[in-house]
């Protein structure tokens, strides 16, 4: 069966420090991968998605970047964190079947607090 991992689970970082959040998927090949941010009491905002190694699409211009160095690895980064980067970051995967559509499956999330 497929599983998705995110780490770290919790992170407290000072303003201006770098960031690296990692997401890995097991049990599937060539998944679509997604990064979302959820601010306190708000819905989910899609940040980036990837349909393959090295292919990254950005949904919202911001202080963050994403990379996909391996098929099942998705990394969210920042060179200098802002207070507004605080939130709950969720990684998700999906498989796009031929002629159809498929749901997304979410990881456990990373709680980021920028002080």
């Amino acid at each position, binding site marked *: 069966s497929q599983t998705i991992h995110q780490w770290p689970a919790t992170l407290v970082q000072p303003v201006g420090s770098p960031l690296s959040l990692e997401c890995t998927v097991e049990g599937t090949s060539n998944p679509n991968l997604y990064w979302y941010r959820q601010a306190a009491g708000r819905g*989910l905002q899609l940040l980036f998605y990837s349909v393959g190694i090295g292919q990254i699409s950005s949904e919202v211009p911001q202080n963050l970047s994403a990379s996909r160095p391996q098929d099942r690895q998705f990394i969210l980064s920042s060179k200098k964190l802002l207070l507004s980067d605080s939130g709950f970051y969720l990684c998700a995967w*999906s498989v796009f079947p031929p002629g159809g559509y498929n749901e997304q499956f979410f990881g456990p*999330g990373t709680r980021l607090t920028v002080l």
Partner: protein
Amino acid sequence: AQSVTQPDIHITVSEGASLELRCNYSYGATPYLFWYVQSPGQGLQLLLKYFSGDTLVQGIKGFEAEFKRSQSSFNLRKPSVHWSDAAEYFCAVGARGYSSASKIIFGSGTRLSIRP
């Protein structure tokens, strides 16, 4: 552009009572619709999905949802709630994106509290 509206920010129901969470969507093509649940500090879990066919779909944990095209709605229901159902519920609509990426647009969520 597609959008999802969940008009109720917070709902409180008594344990054992019935539940209906509202969801309205806007999408020009055939919608793909989802309900997800999120417990505090956790990721999202898929409750149920509608792609086509029977407009009444059954999900996990005793939940069901009905797709009504004429009303652009996909309301979530449960006949008798349990204390463990307290969580945040998100309605979502699927959108076909670039290079077959399956993008999902989420509503802002409805927080469900259960009264003992």
